[in-house]
């Protein structure tokens, strides 16, 4: 496929970035330590002014996978109508990436959700709490090594009787 000109210029700056294409979607893979500078460049120089989504994939026991977690950023340039998917890969025990909240405000809750479900930590996030699960919850349920029926969290409530209520 023919890469757009901004992506060719970007690959001059980030030599370790690799591109691929799947059903018309451009994907950019970057090592985790260059993620911050890449996202900053995309926001400031290439006018990707909207962050659509941040999500994560657990590749545990996935066929052919070499890394554990895949972190996915979906970006949109509202002027150019360009869409770009930025992916980076993380492995335990170093599950910390820089937060994207200084670049896009919408990253705030998206990063909290990724933290809630996968336990990825975002350094510099203003308020990295659980967003969906109760604060006492101790596990990260969308990890593939978490059992579907949980680890007994759903049984952990006081039992009300007729006398006590």
């Amino acid at each position, binding site marked *: 496929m023919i890469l757009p000109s901004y992506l060719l210029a970007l690959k001059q700056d980030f030599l370790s970035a690799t591109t691929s294409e799947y059903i018309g979607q451009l994907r950019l893979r970057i090592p985790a330590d260059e993620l911050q500078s890449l996202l900053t460049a995309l926001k400031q120089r290439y006018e990707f002014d909207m962050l659509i989504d941040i999500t994560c994939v657990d590749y545990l026991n996935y066929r052919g996978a070499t890394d554990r977690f895949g972190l996915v950023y979906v970006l949109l340039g509202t002027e150019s109508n360009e869409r770009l998917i930025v992916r980076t890969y993380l492995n335990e025990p170093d599950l910390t990436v820089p937060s994207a909240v200084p670049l896009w405000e919408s990253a705030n809750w998206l990063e909290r959700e990724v933290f809630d479900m996968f336990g990825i930590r975002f350094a510099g996030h203003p308020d990295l709490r659980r967003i969906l699960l109760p604060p006492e919850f101790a596990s990260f349920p969308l990890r593939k090594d978490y059992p579907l029926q949980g680890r*007994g969290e*759903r049984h*952990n409530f006081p039992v009300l009787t007729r006398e006590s209520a």
Partner: protein
Amino acid sequence: MAIEVPENVLVSRLDQLANWCRKNSLWPMPFATACCGIELMATGASRHDLARFGAEVMRFSPRQCDLMIVAGRVVMKMLPVLQRIWEQMHEPKWCISMGACASTGGVFDTYCVVQGIDRFIPVDMYVPGCPPRPEQLIQAIIDLQDVIQRGGTIRGAEFETRQRQQPKRALVELPVLNQPLHRLTTGGGQRI
């Protein structure tokens, strides 16, 4: 000594009188969280007309209710809310667990869905179905009225006490496949 009783006077027990009043004016608290709630609304609406059984006054304040109808699945973030509302309702009070999800968790056997509200609050009547037809819910209310009329006492002595209560299933762990059992607290049922 024979006392002359006029024809229009009935003799009964005070318990019977209280039960007769209670059973014909159940005020439901609709705790509707899922599709069972739609059937609950249909039950209260004109076609099925729960008013025929004196239970049409749905109140959204637990202070005014004496029948909680839990319609739908309850997740672990909702259960403290459910328990709080149950505690806020005045005695005497009853609970109907409507549908498969409220009674057993239904098909949602996942980490965050409570596997039956009867693990954590007392339940008087279960309605099977996914979701149950309004007729089934009406039948449950009729059966509950029957239970209240037959077994009720004015002081509420018929309600289960801690001594009479069976051990709650919540205190028995469900086996988790290939995983060691793990609890957030050591004591069963302690809020953390």
